[in-house]
């Protein structure tokens, strides 16, 4: 094992000696920084007048959500929201009037947002319900019918998704386990995390493809293959070392960039709402998983890291099969991109949908890992985040074996 680790260390040196590695990592870091800070950059305008900065609004929302008087979505909360909205909509100078209010738009906006900030997220949830159910008047929702309407909405979604009776019963059971009324607080950080998690990991997957494509094919292009394969460990421990280096690189880089991202999120939006149910943010509103924000973050993160490692394995497989890193990069890009489009086409076939959604890129979507479509085995139902990691863990040794054989039997011509 010591020799494998030593050789893996050299593989890391090879990776980091390449300029392309640093360029790609710098680009991913820039993107990560932008994805965290991007939402807080820029100004907010009304009728052409700058009224606020996004950063200030984010801070204001965070402060409002962290100091809520009522910390659950009950009747009182809805009533308070209604009163706040009414107070502004019933003004003589009207919120939607084009005429500048007394004191200017900025002063007016600041006053409005100070009152409205605690309810902005809930408004989005209600808008989602309205879109799904269609036609009901949002202002009539109170703490009681909110949950009933959500259940109605979920029934509608289950029918549209053509779920089996067993799946529907499973989801209803799951839903019943979510404590009502929902605890409410600062979910903004988690919302922003889940929103940007997918593009961030797609970027990481591309980076992994570019950085790991030369892992095996690079030996051929640098004419080192003959030399390497003629050495004692060239046909055994070196291959394990390369696999270890490649998969650990994907794992560590994913975790590293996610930590950077989480630090940004914590700095701007805060992560204090860790114990809120995921249903209070738009990303988890349509899910029936009875978990809190932190649990869901860990679940999605686990799936994303595993999917990044799976991507790395596929890239290394292509690298071992092909004689050019460029070819491996192109095919890896197709592998990363394809599920984004395939998932649109796979809706008609349940098995195709399950297959496409189990591909690594699909696992970067928080909605996919806890999708309503479940895998049924012997009367038990499993979410994607439960069965896909098991499938990946079974596939890793198979892929590793293929890679091993492929490089071991590589013929120098």
């Amino acid at each position, binding site marked *: 094992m010591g020799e494998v680790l030593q050789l893996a260390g050299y593989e890391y040196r090879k990776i980091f000696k390449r300029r392309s590695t640093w360029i790609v990592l710098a680009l991913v870091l820039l993107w990560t920084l932008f994805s965290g800070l991007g939402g807080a950059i820029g100004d907010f305008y009304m009728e052409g007048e700058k009224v606020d900065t996004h950063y200030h609004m984010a801070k204001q929302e965070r402060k409002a959500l962290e100091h809520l008087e009522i910390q659950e979505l009950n009747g009182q909360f809805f009533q308070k929201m209604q009163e706040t909205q009414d107070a502004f909509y019933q003004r003589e100078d009207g919120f939607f009037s084009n005429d500048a209010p007394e004191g200017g738009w900025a002063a007016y906006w600041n006053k409005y947002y100070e009152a409205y900030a605690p309810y902005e997220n809930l408004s989005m949830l209600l808008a989602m319900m309205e879109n799904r159910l269609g036609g009901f008047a949002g202002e009539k929702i109170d703490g009681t019918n909110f949950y009933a309407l959500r259940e109605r909405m979920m029934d509608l979604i289950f029918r549209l998704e053509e779920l089996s009776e067993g799946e529907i019963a499973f989801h209803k059971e799951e839903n019943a386990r979510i404590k009502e009324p929902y605890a409410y607080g600062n979910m903004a950080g988690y919302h922003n995390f889940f929103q940007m998690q997918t593009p961030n990991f797609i970027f990481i997957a591309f980076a992994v493809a570019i950085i790991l494509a030369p892992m095996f094919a690079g030996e051929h292009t640098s004419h080192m293959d*003959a030399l390497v394969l*003629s*050495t004692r460990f060239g046909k055994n421990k070196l291959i394990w070392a390369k696999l270890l280096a490649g998969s650990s690189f994907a794992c560590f880089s994913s975790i590293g960039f996610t930590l950077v991202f989480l630090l940004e999120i914590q700095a701007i939006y805060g992560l204090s709402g860790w114990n809120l149910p995921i249903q209070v943010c738009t990303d988890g509103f349509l899910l029936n998983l009875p978990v809190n924000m932190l649990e869901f973050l860990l679940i999605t993160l686990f799936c994303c890291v595993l999917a990044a490692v799976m991507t790395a394995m596929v890239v290394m497989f292509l690298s071992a099969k092909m004689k050019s890193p460029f070819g491996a990069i192109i095919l890896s890009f197709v592998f990363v991109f394809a599920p984004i489009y395939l998932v649109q086409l796979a809706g008609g076939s349940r098995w195709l949908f399950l297959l496409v959604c189990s591909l690594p890129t699909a696992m970067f979507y928080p909605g996919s890992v806890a999708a309503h479509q479940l895998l049924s085995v012997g009367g038990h139902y499993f979410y994607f985040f439960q069965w896909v990691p098991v499938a990946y863990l079974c596939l890793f040794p198979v892929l590793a074996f293929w890679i091993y054989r492929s490089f071991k039997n590589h013929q120098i011509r």
Partner: protein
Amino acid sequence: MELIFDRVTKQYKEKIAVDRVSLSLTQGVYGLLGANGAGKTTLMRLMCGVLRPDSGEILYNGTKVEEEAYRDILGYLPQQFGYYPDFSAMDFLMYLGSLKGMPKKRASEKSRELLELAGLSHVAKKKIKTFSGGMKQRLGIAQSLLNNPEVLVLDEPTAGLDPKERVKFRNIVSKLGNDRIVLLSTHIVSDVEHIADVILLMKDGAIIHKGSLEEIIQAIEGKVWECTVDSHAAERLMGQYPALNVREEKEGTFLRLVCGEKPAEHAVQAAATLEDLYLYYFSGEGQM
């Protein structure tokens, strides 16, 4: 110590690169001579286990060349010596030391020793991409000796070396041949002439001659002639016999030919050399 080739064959599509080669190599320096495309590099790759034969097998003391135990005692300098451009010479040797299963301390000591031997100590920390062709070649030779191999395979080791470096290299290889099998291929006939105990002549994938220098040049001994003739006669003789050397002189055209009988009235017999033999066999092949 015996390396046995047992009816080894390797074919690439239409071309038979190695054709039923059966050989036995014991300790000593073997020089492999042949024109481009004769199958030398393929034979060496087969010997190093980086290419699988279509039939036949190669065994070292009963161990197949595909096995780790064989690779452990093997040193190999491929014809196209690859390297990692951003590695320093020392890093490169340490990496190869790891691949060869050497403990870190031993690899470090041996690397320093070999860098000294290769005259690369002063650039040990410099990136290989800054090296000249000769320096890279010397580094390649150094890495092949890292694990003190029992079987040393050197494919065109003197390519890119200047005459002084070549002499130094010859001396090193001569010493190495005392307690191991060294097989080297080169186009530089004089290198083989000076250091090989046994010369292997390869043509069209087959070993056509094997023996010491004296034994091998027997094939043309007494058949090498030198003469100076006019241009018309020179053209006629060159059409008739393989010309080993042609030189324009004041008196006419100087020719060195291989032929069974005296080619011209004033022709004198000359002592045959390995180069004569090489040109005799390969003058119409490869780049020659």
